[in-house]
């Protein structure tokens, strides 16, 4: 009999890492209590899970780890509301529930054989980290063409995954450009919003798929830029967020038009999004 989709897998917080200077973004490393749960929890980057704390409730979070990173899950979470405040107060060793994987991942079938342009802004970079780790894994790298990443934050202290970023910048099979809106004295890289860097680099749309994740304002300008660079609407892939409860397309809360962000998304092409009402 199929697993009850409302029953979370038992897991434990293995490690908590503070990602930013403001200390309101933390990465939680979760391990399943039962190894067979890990085997059942087969996911691809772009998908999300609902984390569960008895008495507090649940909330959906994009999975920041790649399935190639062995038997743990990473979630990078900003403290915003009821659930995240509680989560941020927890230490390693605390039990936590995980329901998932949920949603549609990035379109890996279509991404194979293509060049990839990855554009991320601020806190929304989480599932893009998962995507990059997956792409760079030796078992996968040859499936894709060139990989160009542009990742921006307001100030250098807000950039997440600093170690991973440094590693990637040292590699020659991926081109990572970092930018901040406002530099400090020690910052030596780009200064300016993500779209300025994008316009400056002028990536070719030829056989290229773009993944874009970021705050609404960044997405708006990134879409305009990509359009002017010649990217077709169905070559641009976005990931959306909505208030969710069940995460499995039953409770009716997260729809944009006829699509449920939890079940038909959270990944949509720009072409699909344009066909939906602007109610998000």
């Amino acid at each position, binding site marked *: 009999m199929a697993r009850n*989709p*409302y029953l979370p897998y038992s897991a434990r917080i293995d490690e908590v890492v503070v990602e930013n200077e403001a200390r309101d973004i933390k990465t939680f490393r979760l391990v399943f209590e039962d190894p067979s749960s890990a085997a059942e929890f087969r996911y691809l980057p772009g998908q999300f899970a609902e984390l569960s704390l*008895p008495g507090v409730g649940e909330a959906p979070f994009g999975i920041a780890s790649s399935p190639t990173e062995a038997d743990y899950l990473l979630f990078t979470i900003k403290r915003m509301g009821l659930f995240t405040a509680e989560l941020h107060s927890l230490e390693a060793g605390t039990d936590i529930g995980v329901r998932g994987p949920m949603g549609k991942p990035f379109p890996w079938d279509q991404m194979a054989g293509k060049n990839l342009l990855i554009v991320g802004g601020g806190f929304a970079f989480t599932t893009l980290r998962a995507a990059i780790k997956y792409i760079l894994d030796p078992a996968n790298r040859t499936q894709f063409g060139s990989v160009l990443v542009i990742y921006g934050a307001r100030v250098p202290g807000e950039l997440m995954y600093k170690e991973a970023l440094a590693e990637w910048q040292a590699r020659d099979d991926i081109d990572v450009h970092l930018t901040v809106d406002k530099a400090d004295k020690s910052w030596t890289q780009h200064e300016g919003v993500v779209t300025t860097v994008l316009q400056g680099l002028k990536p070719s749309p030829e056989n290229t798929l773009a993944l874009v994740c970021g705050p609404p304002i960044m997405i708006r300008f990134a879409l305009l830029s990509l359009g002017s660079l010649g990217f077709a609407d169905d070559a641009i892939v976005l990931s959306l967020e909505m*208030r969710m409860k069940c995460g499995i397309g039953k409770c009716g*809360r997260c729809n944009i038009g*006829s699509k449920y962000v939890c079940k038909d998304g959270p990944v949509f092409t720009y072409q699909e999004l344009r066909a939906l009402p602007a109610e998000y």
Partner: protein
Amino acid sequence: MTEKQITRTDLDKLLGFFRERGAVYAPAKDEAGDVALTEVGRAASVVLAYTNFRLSPKAFFFPQNQTLLRFNDGRAEEVGVIDRATVLFGVRPCDARALLALDQVFLDGHQDDPYYAGLRARTTVVALACMRPASSCFCTSVGGGPGDGTGSDVLAVALETDLLLRAQTPKGEELLSFAADLLADAMPAAVKEAQERIRAAENKIAPVEVANSAERLRKAYDSYVWETASQKCLGCGTCSFLCPTCHCFDITDEVRGGTGRRVRTWDCCAYALFTLQASGHNPRPTPKERWRQRIMHKFRYAVENFDRPFCMGCGRCIRNCPVSMDLRTMLKEVGP
């Protein structure tokens, strides 16, 4: 499909017989004089003269409060569905058809809802054809009818002295064969009488323009009509809670010291907080967006996703709205 009949005076005996296998619910009058699906006790006193129940029978499959998980010392456990065979007698065809819509949501093949599945599996639905549609009924405009058996397991039609029983599904066949000793084969005259009565009922129902609703609503998304129509909406949950197809729910935890439950409760898209995000952003910030969502969901998104409007024409929302909003009027205002 098997067709049987029984005299109306023997109906109570039939329902009493069904009680041997589990619970039986049938229409009975409560102290206020309203007719509702009530559990049949030793002596059934079934009433057949009613238009419809105030509440839809969806609560038998999707209860208003339902424990999803129990927590013991922080550990989550599933809750089982009690395997008590249940027969619902007297469900109107509109409410029975609604179950097919709910099936498409809860049993969509994408992580099926085990709680809904369990209640569905253990329940046999005997629909009772309508002889006296209300002026707020419009089932015939949304693909149903007063004598439509789809969604039920057995369709019953009340005749002058008898009750015709027509099996609609294998579960219905099974129910009728269980009661074979009490039932006679349906006479051609009874079948004919049933057809005539149903046709007479169909003729009483005024049509509503629902055809092409999905296309019309797509064109009217930015129309000013949403602003003007929604001004009246109070943002209560009456329409959604009484509707046989509305299925939105909320999930909350009630836990003390690691012990308690995770419960789902009916929710309503007309509520202001329904889509409010932790950041404070609300994609549907005013009654206009919420009223539009309601109509769109029922007559456009459901049609696009499930090939049917999520409205069975039962009329409960129209009869019970505190400010007498009428979605039939809305469908007209949306334009061609």
